[in-house]
């Protein structure tokens, strides 16, 4: 078992006929993802990557009962695409685009909460259960990163995911499910919301969180541990420990304001509830070994 997706998930692709859409849909299918349909307005009746294309999500869902939507549309059309899938009853949506207007990010987040849906992204490379299914633009072929295994991974950063996950694999572990929640200031889904599913998943032994300065997602994780909603070992790596306060380096979400959101504060909170925090990417491997050894 993985969480959120596996080879049985029926995936619909919005924007399937675009350059990025068709390129990554082919990769998703090659990895074993069950692509049931695609949507591009005005192109109903075509085939793309072996999947039938429909004019609207309504038409595609009527014919194919999709359970998940993969959104490959440009940033300013993401809000509408997410609303369209929610309207058809889809409750797992992954949206990759970097550049969604902030107020639309917020509307997506509010709509996800109101519909009890999981909307992952934007500004992410998506979601993968290695060896089973992938929704996004994740380079599953890099064996020293995306090796199947028993560690759940959640991340705010694409580039750092490769760096840190390579350390997890180098230490002899592999990945059960990897979720990129994305680098936007208002992501559609947040770290702590996935912890109960990882807790329940008997194929996940521990969770690694790849976070950064700014925001409150790491604090919410600490709270989930403190309240007993998550009891498996948790290891975290947080970037931006030495970033100068108030300077925006990198993700818009990664900024410390008013003395809040510093990596130091996040570390103190996580460690106070028994999570382990690596100072360097390499330490993630040894901390995982220590945490899992202690448990067994």
């Amino acid at each position: 078992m993985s969480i959120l997706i596996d080879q049985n998930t029926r995936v619909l692709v919005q924007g399937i006929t675009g350059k990025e859409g068709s390129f990554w849909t082919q990769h998703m299918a090659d990895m074993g993802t069950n692509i049931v349909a695609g949507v591009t307005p005005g192109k109903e009746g075509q085939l793309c990557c072996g999947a039938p294309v429909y004019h609207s999500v309504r038409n595609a869902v009527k014919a194919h009962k999709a359970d998940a939507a993969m959104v490959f549309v440009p940033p300013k059309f993401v809000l509408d695409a997410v609303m369209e899938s929610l309207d058809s009853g889809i409750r797992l949506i992954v949206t990759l685009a970097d550049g969604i207007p902030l107020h639309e990010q917020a509307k997506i987040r509010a709509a996800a909460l109101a519909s009890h849906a999981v909307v992952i992204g934007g500004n992410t490379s998506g979601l993968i259960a290695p060896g089973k299914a992938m929704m996004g633009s994740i380079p599953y072929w890099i064996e020293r990163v995306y090796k199947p295994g028993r560690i759940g991974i959640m991340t705010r950063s694409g580039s750092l995911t490769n760096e840190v996950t390579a350390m997890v694999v180098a230490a002899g572990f592999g990945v059960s499910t990897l979720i990129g929640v994305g680098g936007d200031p208002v992501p559609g889904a947040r770290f702590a919301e996935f912890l109960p599913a990882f807790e329940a998943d008997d194929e996940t032994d521990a969770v690694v969180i790849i976070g950064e300065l700014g925001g409150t997602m790491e604090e919410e994780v600490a709270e989930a541990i403190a309240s007993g909603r998550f009891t498996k070992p948790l290891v975290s790596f947080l970037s931006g420990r030495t970033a100068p306060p108030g300077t925006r380096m990198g993700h818009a979400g990664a900024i410390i304001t008013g003395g809040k959101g510093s990596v130091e504060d996040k570390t103190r909170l996580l460690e106070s509830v028994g999570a382990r925090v690596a100072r360097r990417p390499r330490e993630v491997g040894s901390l995982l070994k220590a945490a899992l050894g202690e448990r067994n």
Partner: protein
Amino acid sequence: MKLFEYQAKEVFADAGIPVPKSVLITGAGETAAAVGFVGLPCMLKCQVLSGGRGKAGLVKLAKTQAEAEVLAANYFAGVPSLHAVLVEEAVAIERELYLALTMDAPSGRAVLMGCAEGGVEIEQVAAKTPEKIVRETIDLDRGLQPFQISDFVYRLGLRDDALKQVGKLCGALYRAFRSMDAELIEINPLFLTKSGTAVAGDGKLSIDDNSMFRHAAYEKGRPYYASDMEFEAAKEGIPYIEFDGDISLMCAGAGLANTVYDLVNYEGGKVANYLEFGGPNYMKAGTAMRLCLANKPKVILIVTFGTIARADVMAEGITKAVQELKPDCPIVACLRGTGEERVDEIFAPIGLKRLSDTEEAVRKAVAIASGRERA
């Protein structure tokens, strides 16, 4: 995009938020006419984007026209790359409040924040006595409802006329927040004047960068940047920040770049500049290297682990950049990801050897910068 105070106040005025009478001057010669229009005493306020202007002496009161002229002359002569000064009427203040709107990420709602104790020490108030900050979250589809405003201003401790005035202003501020696609809009201080009106004493407004296509009237020119190179990098769409160290970073991806920045500091090195050339910029190695060389670093440290931003394409760009720019400092390159197996062959003509471990690369760069190791 952070706006200057005078621009934020233009937005406020359009939204119906009272602002003091003011004139923007771009040279000391315009001071007399400006003072003539706003009256005495008046404030002279340097239009810079850095915080803490008051403490830095960049906002001062002038009681006479002569004082104003001396102040303006000193500002334009002394403040680096100052482009304008706002000459503003000095308002007779009864008390100061704090008012702001931003986005609350966990709920996906806007959040209106206020404090009965405005002024420069708001961060300290928020840190020491967070209960003094009054909050009201707003559903973006429904908008800010009258009952919410009424409850908010009452909780702020306002009564009677002040309650009505500030309440009206909250509605206007929310409309400006939405129409400007703001990530933050802040009035600190908000003056309650002796004559009983609410006036925006200062104004901060930053427009969400992803929404700039809807605000094309704002052109982000040189005054918005700390240096010529940061301006040039922004024109190329390359995230770039200058520091005063001697190790130039050329990294792909925000998270990895931040991590390399941390690792350099852990190892005792100092960063000359932060630079990302991943994502859509992975073919811009030449531009990236030119920006780095402008800081005269002792070493350039390149770290990437890309997928679509292919390692072999970046290596080709780096090779070409080295051949064209002939950097006089060594380069340490740690390239991983798609096409990495071709990198050594691509680097051969420039004699660069690919490293594959981030920490090893950082240690090597720090050792070179400190003179402990030769490239």
